[in-house]
C-alpha cells in the first residue's frame, strides 16, 4: 500500500492511510447517507418493523394471526433469518459495497479524490467505513425496534435479550465481511452488481446446499453459524443440509469472516491503487 511521502514545502503531515481514510470517511458519510440509496435501505430495514407493527396491532384486536406454539421471540428469530441475515445484509452490502468506487467513477467525481495527497487505498477504506456506518445506522435500529415490538408477544424481553445482543453483533459483522467482499468485486468487475447478486443468491445458496467443503467458500456459512435463533427449515433438503454440515464454531466463523474482510479490503485497495480510471465524457 502506498504511503504519502512528505515533500519539501508540501502540506501538513498526517496523510497516512488511516488518517486519510478518516478524512475520506468524513467526506463520504453525509453524501452516502443522504443519497437515494438510503431510501431503499430504509425500505428494506423498515419492512420487519412494519410487519411487527401489523402483527402487534392484529393481536391487540385479538385477531388469531399466530399459529399455536409460535411466540414473539420465534417470529423475531424468523424475521432475523428471513429478512436480515439472508436478505438485508447481503443485498445492502452488494448495493453499497459494489458502488464504493463505481459511484464516484459514474459521477466522474473520482478525479477530485485521486488528485489529493492521499493513498488511493484510503479512498476505498474511507468509503468502506462510511458504508459501514451508513448501513448499520439504518439496520440496527430497525432490528432493535422489531425486537421490542415482537419479543413481548408470549415471550419475555429478558429471555431473548442475550440473543438480541448476538443479533446486533451479527448485523455489524455481516456488513463488515460482505461489504469488504463486494468492495473488491466492485473494483474488479465492470458490472459488479450482477456478480454480487449471482454470488449471494446463486453461489451461496448452492454452496450451502452441497455436501463437502464448498460451503466454506461462502460468507453465509460463517455468518449463519453465529445466528442464535433456530433456522427455519422449509424442505427436507434444508434439514439434510443442516444435518450434514452442522454449525461451524464461533472461532471458525470469526476466522472465516475475518479472512474474507481482510482479503476483500486488500484486493479492493490494490486494484484501486493500480487501476487507471478513464472517465466517460
Amino acid at each position, binding site marked *: 500500500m502506498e504511503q504519502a511521502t512528505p515533500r519539501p514545502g508540501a502540506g501538513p503531515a498526517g496523510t497516512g492511510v488511516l488518517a486519510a481514510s478518516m478524512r475520506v470517511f468524513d467526506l463520504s458519510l453525509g453524501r452516502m447517507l443522504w443519497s437515494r440509496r438510503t431510501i431503499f435501505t430504509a425500505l428494506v430495514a423498515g419492512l420487519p418493523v412494519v410487519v411487527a407493527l401489523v402483527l402487534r396491532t392484529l393481536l391487540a384486536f385479538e385477531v388469531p394471526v399466530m*399459529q399455536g406454539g409460535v411466540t414473539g421471540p420465534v417470529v423475531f428469530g424468523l424475521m432475523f433469518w428471513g429478512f436480515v441475515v439472508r436478505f438485508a445484509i447481503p443485498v445492502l452490502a452488494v448495493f453499497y459495497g459494489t458502488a464504493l468506487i463505481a459511484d464516484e467513477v459514474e459521477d466522474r467525481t473520482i478525479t477530485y479524490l485521486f488528485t489529493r495527497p492521499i493513498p488511493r487505498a484510503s479512498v476505498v477504506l474511507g468509503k468502506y467505513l462510511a458504508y459501514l456506518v451508513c448501513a448499520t445506522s439504518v439496520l440496527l435500529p430497525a432490528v432493535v425496534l422489531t425486537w421490542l415490538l415482537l419479543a413481548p408477544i408470549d415471550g419475555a424481553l429478558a429471555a431473548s435479550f442475550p440473543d438480541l445482543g448476538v443479533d446486533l453483533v451479527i448485523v455489524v459483522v455481516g456488513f463488515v465481511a460482505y461489504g469488504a467482499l463486494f468492495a473488491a468485486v466492485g473494483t474488479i468487475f465492470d458490472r459488479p452488481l450482477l456478480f454480487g*447478486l449471482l454470488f449471494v443468491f*446463486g453461489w451461496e445458496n448452492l454452496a450451502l446446499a452441497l455436501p463437502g467443503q464448498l460451503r466454506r467458500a461462502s460468507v453465509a456459512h460463517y455468518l449463519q453459524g453465529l445466528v442464535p435463533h433456530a433456522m427455519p427449515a422449509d424442505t427436507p433438503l434444508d434439514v439434510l443440509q443442516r444435518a450434514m454440515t452442522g454449525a461451524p464454531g464461533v472461532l471458525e466463523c470469526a476466522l472465516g469472516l475475518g479472512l474474507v474482510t481482510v482479503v476483500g479490503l486488500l484486493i479492493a485497495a490494490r486494484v484501486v491503487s493500480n487501476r487507471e480510471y478513464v472517465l466517460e465524457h
Partner: protein
Amino acid sequence: MSLVHDQSYRRYTGARRPIGRAWIVILRTTLGALFARRPLIGLLLLSWVPFLVRTVQIYVVESYPQAVEVLAVSPRTFRDFIDFQGLFAFFVTIYAGSGLIAGDRRVNALQIYLSKPLLRTEYIAGKLGALMVCLALVTLVPAVMLLIMQVLMAGNLALHRAAPGLLPAVLLASMLRIVVPAMVMVALSSLSTSSRYVAVMYAGLLFVSEALYGVVARATGSTRVAWLSLPRNLDVVTDAIFRLPSQHDAPVVLSALVLIAFVVASIVVLERRVRGVEVVA
C-alpha cells in the same frame, strides 16, 4: 456529367416505414446491443443446461422403461422445468432489463427517441420486446423444445393424449413467466437513471416479498398468504395452468389478481414516466 458533385443537403426520398412499425427498430437495436454483451450470451447458454439434463431424463425413460419408477416424465416434469428456469430468468431480467430505459434516461436519449416519428407505446414495445425475447430464450423456447424432444424420443403422442392440455399449459405458463417479470422490470427501469439501482429494486421486490411471505406463513402456520410473494403468485398460477395440486393454499384467483395488479401498475408507471414529444400521424 459535371466533375464537381453537388455537396448540398438532399432530402430523403426513399420509402418511409409507416407510423406504428418503428418499434421493430427499437427492438432490433436493443437486441443488438444486448447480444453484444458476452456475459449475457454466457448466461443464455448456461440456462440451457437444465434442458440437456431433462433431455437425458426423457431419453433414459424412453430407452429403459424400468427407469419410469424414478424418472417418470409427466406434466409435472414440464412444470418443474419451467419453475427451475425461473432462476435463470431472474438473472437475465436483471442483466438485460435493468438498463433498458434507465440507460436512455441517463444520457437523455429518451427525449431524442421521442422527438422522432415514434410513438411512446412503440418505444416501450421495442424495449419490452427485447427483454421478452431474452426471457423467451430462457423459458419458452427450451420448454417447447423439451416438449418436441419428448415426442421425438417417445415416437408417439401418448403423453399428450393422456394430458391434452400440456402444450397450451407450457405455452401459457412460459408466457406468464415472461410477461410479468418483463413488464415489472421495464417499469422499474423507467423509474431511475441508474441501472444498478433498478437491478437492486427488482431483486428487492422479489426477495422482500418472498421473505415477507416466509415470515408471515410461519407465524400464521398457513400458506394462504402466498399472494404476498411475487414468485409464489407465479407458482400458484402455474400450478393452476397445469391443473396440478398447488403447494400453497392461496386462492388462484387472488394470485392471478395480484399478478394482474403488478402488470397494471407497471403500465401506469410506464405511462407516467415515458414521456416526450409524441408525433401524431
